[in-house]
């Protein structure tokens, strides 16, 4: 099978049952993406497919051939952090760090959804094209990513600092 991962075309001989998550970790050795629950309940495995956040544990790899997959490795490196990675450090957006790659990929997808005007479960007026990304909106939109260390406040602060300071300018 042929895939597009972080801008590169890669080949992998994998069983049809292989999840996108296992393809990334076990076959391509991109271990930034984490396996938490492996059943779509925690968000640790979140990656971007054509810019949209998905749970790679529930995705059969074979379905994602030809899609542009972006993992945490494609967003930033140790030498060149993604601005959100730097903000997570600044705001203590993690303790153990296990959920962090998923949180960051999720936040990147979340901001793109918000910029396209997508509402959430806490949006007051569904017909409003300009939804203010306040604390409740951020928490709701990030609710698919659990952090068992309880760093959610730091995560929200990091997202606000990275994206909403710019939006306010």
């Amino acid at each position, binding site marked *: 099978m042929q895939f597009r991962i972080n801008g590169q075309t890669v080949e992998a001989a994998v069983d049809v049952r292989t999840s996108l998550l296992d393809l990334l970790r076990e076959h391509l050795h991109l271990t930034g993406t984490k396996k938490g629950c492996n059943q779509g309940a925690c968000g640790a495995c979140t990656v971007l497919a054509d810019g949209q956040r998905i749970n790679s544990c529930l995705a059969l790899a074979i*379905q994602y051939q030809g899609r542009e997959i972006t993992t945490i490795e494609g967003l930033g490196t140790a030498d060149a952090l993604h601005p959100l990675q730097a903000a997570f450090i600044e705001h203590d957006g993690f303790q153990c760090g296990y959920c962090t790659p998923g949180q960051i990929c999720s936040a990147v997808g979340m901001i793109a959804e918000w910029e396209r005007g997508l509402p959430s479960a806490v949006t007051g007026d569904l017909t409003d094209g300009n939804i203010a990304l306040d604390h409740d909106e951020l928490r709701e939109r990030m609710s698919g990513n659990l952090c068992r260390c309880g760093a959610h406040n730091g995560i929200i602060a990091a997202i606000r600092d990275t994206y909403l300071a710019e939006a306010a300018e």
Partner: protein
Amino acid sequence: MIEFRYDRADDVGSALGLIGESGKYLAGGTNLVDLMRETIERPTALVDVSGISGSIEEQAGGGVRIGAGVTNSAVAAHPVIRRDYPMLSRAILAGASAQIRNMASVGGNILQRTRCYYFYDDAARCNKRAPGAGCDAIDGFNRIHAILGASPDCVATHPSDMCVALAALDAIVHLRGPEGERTLPCVELHHLPGGRPDIETALKPRELIVSVELPVVPFARRSTYRKVRDRSSYAFALVSVAAALDLEGGAVRDGRIALGGVAHKPWRAYAAEAALKGKPATAESFRAAAEAELKGAAPLSGNGFKVELAKRTIVSVLQELAA
């Protein structure tokens, strides 16, 4: 997960040709892949239909046709759905997480299977998983289970939020199978458990959901969806209510109500709707309507709270719509 053959369908015709006797249609996979990993679902072939029936179209005479392959996110985000059927947008947005909504299809949402713990646990007895085995939920931990329409064989609930709104809106499901096309009202697609909880829908072998049609419901602009759950996001409903109100001069001309989290299928509250018609839009009328609907409730050892919760949620949602 057992081995399976994988084929990608280019159109509905090729999907029907590929599916075979023990195949399953695959779209987002958010429920099916999980169930296959648990070997609860054991298809020997998967036909990927995620690339077909992927558009939302406004109909010439009003109403909207939603392709079965459209993602949940795309339905919730669609400007016409947000404006004309807010309860549907809100129901979808109340379900799962953004990641799952980005993957999950409309057809798959309709056909998702119960979240009863005993259905998932292959060490437990479950008539849905193994017909005739018995049910460990009836005398077990049944806080999340059904209070309406259950049977001695099954007390599971249907987990979808989207389908609750579809039931309230009188949505029509368009199907295609080896014998051709047909339509079914959404409220007739899912079965109550009766003696065969393993047969969950009216779908015939190999039939594929092609689209869902939302009829014109002008007063659905005044509609919403409220989900009551153990945490404020990303949890299944204990009770949910989809409702629309048609008000005239302080009275209810017409109304639509459906309940989630209470039955084996999205529960259209016909008794409550009938009780509301022509009544003043007051808390007293709303309470009477809720009482009428829940009169037949039969709670289990652990979910008696759902009866009052459902009543109060109905009243609260109707009050919000009438305000």
